[in-house]
């Protein structure tokens, strides 16, 4: 923006070198640069939180291990969970939406570029605030105490009587800040998709990806205020003498759970739908067929957007709700399996009869499909309230949500990174390293999380820093820890792939995958203004129409 607003002597900018280049990134309001920064944030915090997980698995590899003391372990899982949800999952959505929505709808930028930049920096600041608690936070064990209340921070453990010091406040404020960032992104995506579509692109012709991003934005706008309100009430409890959740003064611990999960359940769809969006772009291109049942896909996504607002109390089947309430939430939870099933069937229908190419982006999508199928089925099991009484808060649940978020969202994330990396950087990621990354990650993922289902069904609760021998959990935990290390190696290969390919990856060209949406109609990387000329949009696949004038889509839509 700066270089557009007033003339700059190019030579003097070059002479300044790195500081000047960094300055350009700091002051940028370009949606593509912000998208890339969101993606870097996502990957960096993914690696940080991932190493916390590896540390936890090391502690749990054998019974009675004393490698990590309990208070440190409790901080590890709290910071791991908080980071993965708020500083990996949410920036992942923002990264995709920022980079791709304007390109896919043929817009020059997001609707509110400056607000967009503010959203990124406030989110990043929230993440830094969370981690600064490791230096400045104060808790029971003195300075350098990170939050240790768990990522859903059940009251009244978070009250001052049980969490003295400031570490819990770091957690509260970090999340409130990230919430501001997410809200900004949601408003921006919605406004962009509604107002800035190029000529000819009606809502019906808008890419499925953008539709899904709009549904996510809607969910964020409805669900996040509940979390923010809960956090503010908690702060009032802690510092202003309120008693919302302070059970010692008559407050209600379950009220916190309602506030949290009213946000928390839509949140898991907020984390997975960007994954769905990637899959819905990649699977058609690599099957060489249009999305099967596009309208049904849009309908299913919108249905998930609404139904997901009425299932939150399935996280609370064990808190002692009435049998009627439990039955209602069991029914609504299973109902959400229907639109989710429709999606899986439609992806299957897209591949059916295609010519499937097994490039790395597609491999990750295939991994996603199998793992998300299992995650959905274990989700049905957990929706059956009496079975949930056994399985909730056990390792079965840990395995289930890692299947959705790791096996689902993160596999889709990697698929998306391999797919759009050429667009964003102009270079291809290495296919060889990509395949190593994929297969090692699949192996590590299944070694880690498959055994956890069984440990959970043998009564192992989550969030324990150690366990005694003889309760049937040793073997499963050892295998799980080996798997975590394997995943670590896979992620290192990915990091190496990114660094090497940035320097000497194959030059991508505008459209390396022979794809059909608008972002492939411009250069890689796109110029600051995105498009010099835009193709005419007459169908959902404008580039297909361009490449196949004899058989255009608009004839059939």
């Amino acid at each position, binding site marked *: 923006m700066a270089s557009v607003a007033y003339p700059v002597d190019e030579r003097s900018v070059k002479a300044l070198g790195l500081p000047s280049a960094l300055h350009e990134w700091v002051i940028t309001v370009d949606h593509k640069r912000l998208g890339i920064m969101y993606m870097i944030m996502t990957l960096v915090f993914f690696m940080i939180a991932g190493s916390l997980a590896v540390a936890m698995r090391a502690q749990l590899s054998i019974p*009675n291990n*004393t490698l990590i003391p309990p*208070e440190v372990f*409790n901080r590890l899982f709290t910071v791991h969970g908080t980071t993965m949800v708020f500083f990996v999952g949410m920036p992942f959505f923002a990264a995709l939406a920022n980079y791709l929505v304007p390109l896919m709808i043929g817009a020059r930028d997001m609707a509110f570029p400056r607000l967009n930049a503010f959203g990124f920096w406030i989110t990043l600041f929230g993440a830094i605030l969370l981690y600064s608690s490791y230096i400045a936070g104060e808790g*029971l064990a003195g300075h350098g105490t990170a939050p240790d209340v768990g990522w859903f921070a*059940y009251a009244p453990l978070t009250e001052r*009587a*049980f969490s003295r010091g400031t570490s819990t406040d770091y957690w509260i404020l970090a999340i409130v800040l990230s919430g501001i960032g997410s809200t900004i992104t949601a408003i921006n995506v919605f406004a962009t998709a509604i107002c800035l579509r190029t000529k000819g692109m009606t809502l019906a012709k808008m890419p499925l990806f953008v539709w899904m991003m709009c549904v996510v934005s809607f969910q964020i706008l409805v669900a996040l205020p509940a979390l923010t309100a809960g956090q503010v009430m908690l702060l009032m409890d802690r510092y202003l003498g309120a008693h919302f959740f302070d*059970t010692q003064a008559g407050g*209600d*611990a*379950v009220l916190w759970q309602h506030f949290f999960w009213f946000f928390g359940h839509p949140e898991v769809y907020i984390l997975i739908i960007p994954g769905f969006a990637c899959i819905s772009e990649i699977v058609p291109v690599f*099957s*060489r*067929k249009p999305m*099967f049942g*596009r309208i*049904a896909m849009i309908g299913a996504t919108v249905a998930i957007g609404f139904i997901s607002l009425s299932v939150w109390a399935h996280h609370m089947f064990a*808190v*002692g709700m*009435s*049998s009627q309430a*439990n*039955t209602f939430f069991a*029914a609504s939870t299973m*109902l959400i*399996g*229907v639109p989710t*099933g*429709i999606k899986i069937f439609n992806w*299957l*229908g897209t591949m059916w009869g*295609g*010519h*499937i*190419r097994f490039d790395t982006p597609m491999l990750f999508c295939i991994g996603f499909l*199998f793992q998300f*199928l299992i995650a959905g*089925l274990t989700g*049905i*099991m957990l929706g*059956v309230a*009496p*079975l949930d009484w*056994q*399985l909730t*808060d056990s390792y079965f649940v840990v395995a289930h949500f890692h299947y959705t978020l790791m096996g689902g969202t993160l596999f889709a994330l990697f698929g998306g990174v391999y797919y759009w990396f050429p667009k964003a950087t102009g270079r291809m990621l290495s296919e060889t390293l990509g395949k190593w990354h994929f297969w090692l990650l699949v192996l590590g993922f299944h070694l880690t999380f498959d055994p956890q289902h069984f440990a959970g069904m*043998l*009564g*192992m*609760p*989550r*969030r*324990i820093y*150690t*366990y*005694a021998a*003889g*309760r*049937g959990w040793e073997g499963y935990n050892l295998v799980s820890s080996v798997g975590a290390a394997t995943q670590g190696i896979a992620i290192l290969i990915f990091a190496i792939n990114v660094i090497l390919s940035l320097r000497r990856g194959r030059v991508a060209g505008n459209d390396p995958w022979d794809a059909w949406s608008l972002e492939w109609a411009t250069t890689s990387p796109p110029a600051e203004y995105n498009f010099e000329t835009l193709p005419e949009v007459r169908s959902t696949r404008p580039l297909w129409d361009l490449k196949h004038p004899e058989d255009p889509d608009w004839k059939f839509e």
Partner: protein
Amino acid sequence: MLFRFRPCRVHRKIGCVRSEVLVFYKATNLKIKAGFTRCGLGAHRKECSSMSFRLLAVWLVLASALPGQTVHAIGDIFKPLASPALAVRDLSYLVFAICGAIFVIVAGLLTYALFRFRRRASNDHVEPPQVYGSNQIEIAWTVIPILIVFVITMATARVIAALQDKSQPANAVLVTVIGHQWWWEFRYPGLNVVTANEMHIPVSPPGKERPAFLTLESADVAHSFWIPQLSGKTDVIPNRENHMWLDPHETGIYYGNCAEYCGTQHANMLIRVVVDSAEDFDKWVAQQKQPAIADPKVSQARDAFLGMACVTCHTVRGTTANGKFGPDLTHLMSRGTLASGMIPNTAGTVFAWVGHPQAIKPGNLMPDMQLNDKELEQVVSYLSTLR
């Protein structure tokens, strides 16, 4: 025995090194690691030259059961031994069968599609027929899942009602379970019994039912009461009363855990449910009702104990000790374990626990009382008489 150097964790100063002589003790079901440690090799020799004996770790391999008692240590939800867990297991068979069938069908179709419709050299540069969808197929894969969901929901609703709305028979044993940061208190209203960490209930075989009805309360934060072989979990929430019931079909000791994260020692908030035969249970109640034994041989030790700060947290019925914060010690030695199921309960482990509770269960709310050797011996000799 082992000799080693480690960085000093007491002083947390760079260059402060600790030398340790470690002794390992291993019995059938207990391992103890203890040692002499001496800080002050390096720069901090003067500040921290004290030599101390420290208990470094005690751990349980599998705590003891009395002879003749079956231990149900593995909380396998597919080996239920009480009606609530049985009902869940039976429902789970239905759910697993349906989900398994869906998995086989969908994963099978996916695998078939990946194999059958892969790119081949022959079709590489030809685009396949462009198919946009089919309303009939969409309707089919919407309606069939709705029917499946309907079936599972109906089966679920029936089990929820049967378990949650079960009426309480007249002969039910009533227990109030109170969760504390990181131990369990069990009160038997009407029986005048209070105990900790090991809940005794009678066996309740079909035909001779005598179920236990539990009222769950918390003294501090949220916990959850879970013995997988007997029932699913129910949360234990402060300022709220929850309910559950158990009717174990077999005697023995059942293991469980606190299943809601509740702070530092959540992992070691273990539950033991001792299911006695009807006679044994009545005997146990009769014994637990008694006030504490006043053994004249330890009257001096008892006086010393009652003069210490222990009594502000612990109750010994029949004496002036009436603290409410920690576990009731009236019949301490009748229990099999200490520290909420962490270690077996013997005179030796009581000694280790009272001397260094933080070394055994770091972060627990019993402070290290800094007793001298004589005081420690008095406390332990008194406590070991409380059968």
